[in-house]
């Protein structure tokens, strides 16, 4: 079984916050080269309470690239592969129905291997070198 980081993040809020911060640091390191910034765009509250379900654990809009990244972190005990990814769209301008931003969605059980693939996908996404077939290629390459 793969070695998972922050494996009990759904049971412990402190661990959850550490996992969330980990994603922030990872994206900072990806964006460092270009000097890009990022800001969260998903509201983490339900009513007055913060959600701790990992769906998503992290979101970032990168204005310089006009792109968004949403990370859904799931319990390592869940079925399925450690990492799945796809491209979606989201309206980030609440006053207009016109503008849609492209969003890379990562659905991940945070093993070290999955983390490395996520980093590779994020880098390609920021550089606008990613589409659905390249995601397929990257995921297939790493599942060998």
């Amino acid at each position, binding site marked *: 079984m793969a070695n998972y980081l922050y494996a009990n993040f759904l049971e412990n809020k402190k661990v959850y916050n550490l996992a969330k911060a980990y994603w922030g640091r990872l994206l900072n390191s990806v964006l460092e080269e270009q000097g890009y910034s990022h800001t969260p765009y998903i*509201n983490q509250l339900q009513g007055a309470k913060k959600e701790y379900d990992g769906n998503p654990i992290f979101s970032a809009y990168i204005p310089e690239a006009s792109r968004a990244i*949403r990370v859904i972190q799931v319990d390592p005990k869940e079925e399925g592969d450690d990492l*799945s*990814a796809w491209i979606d769209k989201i309206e980030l301008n*609440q*006053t207009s129905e016109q503008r849609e931003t492209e969003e890379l969605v990562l659905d991940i059980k945070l093993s070290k291997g999955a983390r490395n693939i996520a980093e590779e996908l994020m880098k390609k996404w920021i550089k606008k070198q990613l589409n659905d077939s390249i995601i397929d290629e990257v995921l297939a390459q790493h599942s060998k």
Partner: protein
Amino acid sequence: MTKKHRGRIQAQGDGLEKSESWSQDNPLTKEEGLSLLEQLWSSLTKKEKEVRRKPYKDAKRYIENIDGGIDAIKKKTFRNRKTRSVRIDIEVLAGSAFLLFVGILLCFLLFN
């Protein structure tokens, strides 16, 4: 004119893109949200439903359990984990949604 409260519930992945959306002056109630999810579910073919049965149940449970509504921007994904991206997404894009009707009525009475 753009409405204050907007969002959509989508069935996506594996080439599918079907959705039910709302755009209105008042927040969507929980009952209306569940009704939109049912409408979306009814619009799917047998095959499309088969692979989305668990995402559908998870999305329904999520809406049912919302306490105090949710505010934009919110996006929840319920994926069939045996597939790459077969899923149901709930998006609150502007305003609030999934409030209890009683809550909306109270707000209306308080602020009008």
